[in-house]
């Protein structure tokens, strides 16, 4: 690369107990859109935080246009020409577009007055240069997220940014808005800016990027021109698996019994900007896996099915009954249970005891008046602590003091004692040790044998392939295919995740 705009060399960053970046090199050229991809914990955020001055590296050098820089604060990086537009956009929603564009740089009259006319003219020119159309007096609050994002980009560019970091700018945009943003990005590329683009959507990586750098576990696994990197190779690199083309089909322990009663049927269910319409049938005694990259819609579908988020359309029936207004409370009453992906945010009540956390859903379903006698509570909680071997000194210990694996088992216990007919497990094994993981996997097998209908979601593809009878592959917020029987192999899952450019999909 002749004119490297940004060169990061040997960047190391450690946090207590974690090596976030382990000697990462990264090069961004002028007039280049460069996608940075990787699963959670790969180090993407840390790398851009270092580039934009929000963090300092332990080791390593950063050069901008050949000059070594060491930004200590985002403001300093911005002065040097590195600007970032984050997911939560740092704009003032109650100010107008013009005020936001020129915040802190308002044209002043001699007495320090703001020259409003001049300000609006300048704002209009900035928007014009970017090919954006908007009335500059409009308060930002009234603009769509897409427009706000583009205003943030426009402001950065107007502040003489040479490097633009876009951290998941499309996560809340629809297709039309996304393509407008891409147009803007291409325009800026034409002006010679270097754009670092982070997204979880593979389609978008290929739609707009010139180069792709892949991080995994704090290391750079590769940096390629987008046209030289197949989707399958990209997915393999992100997940750290060579595409096992020749892997033998794993015999299913049990064929899927298509005569078993359908527990959960979804038809054309969707939520705007979150999940494209999908169909799904879940039968008694089967494990349906969801496989897909982060942000592919796997958690979002689980939330729709359980009624955490309202669906915008489609029909859903649970155990034969059509469900209209859905909520977790109703879903539970219909016999559903969801162990959420984010245990801390959506699972545990941290300073309540292990016992209260285990019994929370049961108490909720009984209502406030029909409290279980204390002895019965104790016996129930005790039984599940023992059967799931939850390691806790006693039942009245605050659940926050338990390890991650044991916390996960507390949530499983909460739902198992409700004896659901449909169990949704979202990342039940994330962040827990191998032993607990094996236990949870074999538990899933037992529950299936007892006729429970289970949805198993995991970012670990082998795990999904190992545990599930059928797998729905998700890509870019929609269902990209279903695999079962002999087709259910790691390689075919990866091909489906990679989508079109990924070679011949399926078997």
């Amino acid at each position, binding site marked *: 690369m002749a004119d490297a705009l940004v060169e990061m060399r040997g960047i190391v960053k450690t946090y207590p107990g974690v090596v976030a970046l382990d000697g990462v090199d990264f090069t961004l050229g002028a007039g280049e859109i460069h996608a940075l991809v990787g699963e959670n914990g790969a180090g993407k955020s840390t790398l851009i935080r270092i580039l934009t001055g929000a963090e300092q590296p332990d080791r390593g050098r950063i050069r901008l246009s050949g000059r070594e820089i060491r930004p200590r604060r985002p403001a300093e990086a911005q002065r040097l020409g590195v600007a970032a537009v984050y997911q939560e956009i740092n704009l003032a929603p109650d100010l107008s577009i013009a005020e936001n564009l020129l915040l802190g740089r308002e044209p002043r009259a001699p007495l320090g007055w703001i020259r409003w006319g001049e300000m609006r003219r300048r704002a209009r020119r900035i928007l014009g240069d970017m090919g954006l159309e908007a009335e500059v007096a409009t308060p930002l609050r009234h603009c769509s997220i897409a427009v706000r994002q583009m205003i943030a980009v426009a402001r950065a560019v107007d502040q003489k940014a040479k490097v633009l970091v876009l951290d998941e700018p499309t996560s809340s945009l629809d297709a039309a808005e996304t393509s407008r943003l891409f147009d803007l990005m291409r325009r800026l590329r034409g002006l010679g800016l270097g754009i670092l683009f982070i997204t979880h959507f593979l389609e978008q990586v290929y739609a707009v990027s010139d180069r792709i750098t892949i991080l995994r576990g704090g290391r750079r696994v590769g940096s390629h021109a987008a046209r030289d990197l197949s989707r399958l190779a990209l997915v393999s690199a992100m997940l750290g698996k060579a595409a096992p083309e020749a892997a033998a089909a794993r015999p299913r322990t049990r064929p899927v019994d298509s005569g078993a009663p359908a527990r959960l049927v979804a038809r054309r269910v969707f939520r705007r900007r979150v999940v494209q319409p999908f169909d799904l049938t879940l039968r008694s005694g089967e494990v349906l896996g969801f496989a897909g990259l982060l942000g592919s819609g796997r958690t979002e579908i689980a939330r729709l099915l*359980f009624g*955490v988020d309202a669906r915008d359309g489609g029909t859903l029936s649970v155990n034969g009954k059509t469900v209209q207004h859905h909520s*977790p*409370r109703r879903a*539970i*009453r219909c016999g559903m249970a*969801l162990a*959420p992906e984010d245990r801390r*945010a*959506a*699972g*545990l*009540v*941290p*300073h*309540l005891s292990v016992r*209260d956390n285990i019994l*929370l*859903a049961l*108490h*909720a*379903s*009984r*209502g*406030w*008046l*029909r*409290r279980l006698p204390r002895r019965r509570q104790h016996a129930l909680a005790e039984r599940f602590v023992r059967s799931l071997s939850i390691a806790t000194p006693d039942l009245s210990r605050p659940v926050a003091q338990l390890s991650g694996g044991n916390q996960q088992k507390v949530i499983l216990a*909460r739902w198992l004692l409700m004896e659901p007919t449909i169990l949704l497990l979202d990342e039940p094994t994330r962040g827990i040790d191998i032993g607990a993981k094996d236990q949870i996997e074999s538990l899933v097998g037992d529950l299936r044998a007892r006729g429970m209908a289970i949805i198993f979601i995991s970012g670990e593809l082998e795990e999904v392939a190992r545990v599930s009878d059928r797998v729905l592959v998700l890509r870019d917020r929609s269902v990209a295919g279903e695999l079962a029987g002999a087709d259910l192999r790691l390689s075919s899952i990866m091909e489906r995740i990679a989508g079109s450019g990924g070679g011949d999909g399926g078997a």
Partner: protein
Amino acid sequence: MRDVARNLLWPFAAVAILMAFNALRDPAFLHLRLVDGRLTGAMIDVLNQGAPVMLLALGMSLVIGTGGIDLSVGAIMAVAGAAAAAMLHSGASSASAVGAALAVGAAAGLWNGSLVALLGIPPIVATLIFMVAGRGVAQLITDGEIITIAPDAAILAIGRGSLFGVPLPVLTALSAAGALAALARLTSLGLFIEGVGGNEEASRYAGLSVRSIRIAAYSIMGLLAALAGLIDAADIAAADANNCGLYLELDAILAVVIGGTALTGGRFSIAGSLLGAVLIQTLSTTILRADFGGRSVPVELNLIIKAAVVLALCLVQSGEWRRLCRPIRSAAA
């Protein structure tokens, strides 16, 4: 349990120290006598005068337990008192006046709870609305005047009567505490409140009806505030829309905080809030009784002393403050 005991230690010690201080200055402080079949004495006065704040603090601990706050309780007192007095004035019986006051209080709580739970208005803003509007409503009811209650009205017993020698306000506050403790421990309501306050999202996933729990907490609060308003009106035999319960929301919140309930929600202690309310009243009484060289403490100083004691209590209970003090203590050792 150990947590609760530790949280109660300081307020308990503070009450004991204040009592000892009073007893040393005037041994009569500790005397209890039966006069006309009724217990009298300075300590009974403390409890009697503290009853409204005790009631408010009880309800406030539930509301704060859900992660909320209620600034309108003083105004609810005023509306309830005004409603009762107006009913009596128009010839209604004492019983129906009490019923009306309680209904008005519960309705006000329902209103607050609905704003918070259904419309998602932050509790401090939602209850500020009734804090301001409630006094207006009370003034409308009383036509801006102080409505007096006839000296022979049965309703006055709520503020002045006694049962088995114990003043009724004290009995009312203690029974309310008992009822709430039963509600919290014998039903699942206490757990639900702590669940909603501790992690609303997780509670929703577990199938709790977060909205109804919030609304229930504010409604119980409204009911208790109405009871406090009745005691106040019966005590002075008048409904004063402007001054009934004025600033008592602050005393109630302080009582809850002193009692070891975190304003962040997820935890509450009935006993702690009761003790906090007793402490606040003991403090006021102590300051009122104290005199320096024959002169009583001026009112301005009263408030400052109160603030200082409350600040000191909050500091000893604050983890941050303890951490700050640790290096100093070890340096001194």
